[in-house]
């Protein structure tokens, strides 16, 4: 199990919303944990500052709705600007992870 790398949580949230469509905070947190196959133990509270940040930047929007077991909850979805941002961030992530991969793979 590992901590979430600084700055990567935003990207995870964006990608999750991209794949799953509209989702509430609990759903997002759960989904990230599932995808990571419990590699990442998310402190679920931390996604709320992340959601706020993304919303302030206009990359996601939120609406009140009712969850599958009839609870009032806030649902988040990706905006168009958020989709563009996701593409950009994914690209740069690929690039960096590639570089880091090569660096680590290079012989001593």
């Amino acid at each position: 199990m590992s901590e979430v790398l600084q700055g990567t949580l935003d990207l995870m949230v964006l990608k999750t919303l991209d794949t799953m469509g509209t989702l509430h905070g609990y759903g997002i947190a759960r989904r990230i944990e599932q995808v990571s196959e419990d590699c990442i133990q998310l402190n679920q509270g931390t996604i709320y500052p992340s959601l706020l940040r993304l919303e302030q930047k206009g990359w996601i929007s939120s609406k009140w709705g009712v969850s599958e077991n009839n609870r009032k909850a806030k649902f988040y979805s990706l905006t168009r600007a958020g989709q563009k941002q996701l593409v950009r961030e994914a690209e740069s992530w690929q690039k960096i992870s590639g570089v880091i991969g090569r660096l680590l793979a290079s012989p001593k």
Partner: protein
Amino acid sequence: MRTLLSKIRAIFSKQRLDDDFNTELEAHIAMLTDENLRRGFSPDEARRAAILAIGGVTRVKEERREGRSFTVIEAFFKDLRYAVRMLLKNPGFTLVAVITLALGIGVNTTLFTAFNAVALKPLPVRDPYNVVRLERWFENGNHGDVQYAFSYPEYVHFNQQNQAFSSLTAVSWPEPVLAALASGSTETLHARLVSANYFPDLGVTAFLGRTFLPEEDQIPGAHPVMMLSYALWRDRFHSDPNALGQIIKVNDTSFTIVGVAPEEFIGTGIPSIVPDFWTPIMMQAQLTPGQNWLDNPLDQRFQILARPKPGISVKQAQAEIAGLQQRFTQLHPSRNRTLTVTLELAHYLPNTNDPRFQVIVGLMMIVVGMVLFIACANLANMLLARSAARRKELTVRLALGAGRSRLIRQLLTESTLIAVLGGISGLFLSIWASKVLWLAIQQWLQGPFGPGAAFLVSLSPDSRVFTYTLLISIATGILFGLSPALRFSRVDLTSGLKDEATAFGQRLDRSRLRSFLIAGQIATSLMLLITAGLLVRGLVRSQAVDPGYETRSVYLVSFNYGSDAAKALAIQRRAIDRLRELPQVRSVTLTGGIPMAGTTSQEVQSDDTRSKSFSSDTLLARVAPQYFETLGIPLLNGRNFTPQEMDRGAPVAIISELTARQMWPDENPLGRHFKLQDRVGRTTGPWVQYDVIGVAKSVRTANLSRLDPMMLYLPIRPASLENILMRTEGDPKIALAAVRSTLESIDRNIPPSLQLISLEQGPLHFEKVQARIWAMSAMSLAVLALALATVGIYGVMSYLVSQQTREIGILMALGATARDVLRSVILQGLRPVFIGSVFGLAGAVAITSLLRATLIFASSPDFLYGVRMFDPVTFLGLSALLALVALLASAIPAWRAIKVDPMIALRYE
């Protein structure tokens, strides 16, 4: 950007957002709990696990809140609310603090308002930051108003040749003229000659009627038209729109009123006097008969205001105008060559970039700054005392986990709030004070000059004044709040909570800052007090001072001579002859200069002295032989001028006693020589050698404050229209009536324009008013400083004594007598007073030396009226006064302390 907006919005909807998030978080927890239940947890455990998984409800909320908005700003609003509550809880403290600061900030703002009005505010014209004034620089280094004077041919030359300016306008200095109004009254009005484009190009439109037309300024004497100032129209024509088209007779010419200037147009400065009317330059010969300003290329009479064309920098424009000036100098060489011409932004006052002006303003700023310092020191002390009382509260907050920086911010918010409140009150105080001050000054000036000569009046605060007040308020708030805040946010938690260690343990440390503040206050107020004391002593002397000549029965005789120069001279000579025959008139003289009404100074050189090459600045007066008799100035040595010498314009001179002592100490000055440059108007001629034929007693003509350090009397120029001074005998009313009827018998046109003002009522009055203004301002500042310092000392001493009640109780229980306690408390209070006095005395010496240093010019006033620089009476007397006040301020609390019953004192707290 979006983030910023959203954060700003969040400031205002804090409550709703908090509620929203609570719901959201609650839903999250509920869902987690559901899942945990499914996994087989017990209900309680399921919820606990859910809360653990999200990392604690409060923490999440806090994190969310920090991200949502500017915590700093939210905290600021919280601090502000808290500060307001604290201030309302202690209305007495708040009131004293705000009043103290209002006084300190008020005097600063008042001075700044005045400075702003004369040196910073733009002229009341369209697009004022684009208007420049031409300034010339002389080879001989002449400074002052002369630098702004250009001859009419020069103006025409610039106007025709330049490419860089969209307009050049010319305006003369205000000329006093005798004007006969239609109502039948005659009075002295001030007029300025202007080029026809002066009003339109500066963007000033007439309030009534019109401004001048181009054709009205083309043919000399052809269009006698005038524009009135708003003030003259209001006061003399009672705001009657029918004033347009009416006639005002100036000299022999009837001028038609064609317009009235708007109220806010108070002229373009230099000097800062609102003229009564304007008239085209072509009317010069009619306005000032017997003179010709239009044709002489060296007769410098006009200021030039200009607007550079759009896209042309001031530098380019300056280069061009300097080049044009060079060409003009080649065509019309003069002895005092103009080296270059520069452009400066047009303000009311000239030479605001002159270091001497800046030094004076700087000094005044320092003085009022000192008053503000005293106010700040008071507040710092009050806050120190109060935060000591709030120790417990602060300690509790620190113990509960408040950060130190957070606490400092909170305390600074409180002090800044006090300061801003003080600043606002100070601003109102200053608006009121400048109004009162202005009314007082105008009242004093009303006497000799009449309502016509109003100084610039626009003292209303503008955005610059508001900014200045706001800035000094915030600065003072931080200044006096910082040290208490720093000190008390660093509390030792245990001792702070235990509360009692305070009185003994911490006193020593804190009293050092306090002593420093008291010493500073004492030093500053003593400095101000002594300076003011010297000025007031000077004032007392000025009201009683003997100028050295007769003033009550000597009258200035002025009337309208008409515009024909030859005829005017004949009338004047006949008038003098007839007046001399009157038994009520003891003596009549012609004179170039009137005592106390302006001076002429010039450089004098002599190679006939012991040091071979004597050179100095001297005062100068051209007078008729009867001058000495009329004014009652005795000739100590040698002889008077003869009428023949006067007619010839012989190069002979009578010098004052002090001049003789300075040029020829211990020698007989009679028969010695000196040289002067001949001077007519603003132009200078060759050096002329003069023989000394007499020595007159030294008197005060430049300033009432001191004997003229150097004065040369030369014979008056033959056939020149100069001032008449007359000395009456017996009852002045009878004498003046006789003078009036005699003059009427010469010419029936004289009486309407006749003015008879004695030296006492006229020029001398102005001198005394000046001294009064200086001394009054200094005195009110000093009294203010003393009052503030007294309040400060009293406050600190009461606080110290109240803190030591237990200590005193113990001492008295152990057998100390009331006298012992009293002495120890008072001595403790007086130590910083003593140290402060020493520094204050040193500072006062420095200030008076500076006042002394102004005496280097022959015509400069002696602000102290000959009071000695280290006048022991003033220095020691005021030090003693201050010590007495300090003693009283510390004795009262001390007295209260020893009245305390030891038993009560020990149980105190």
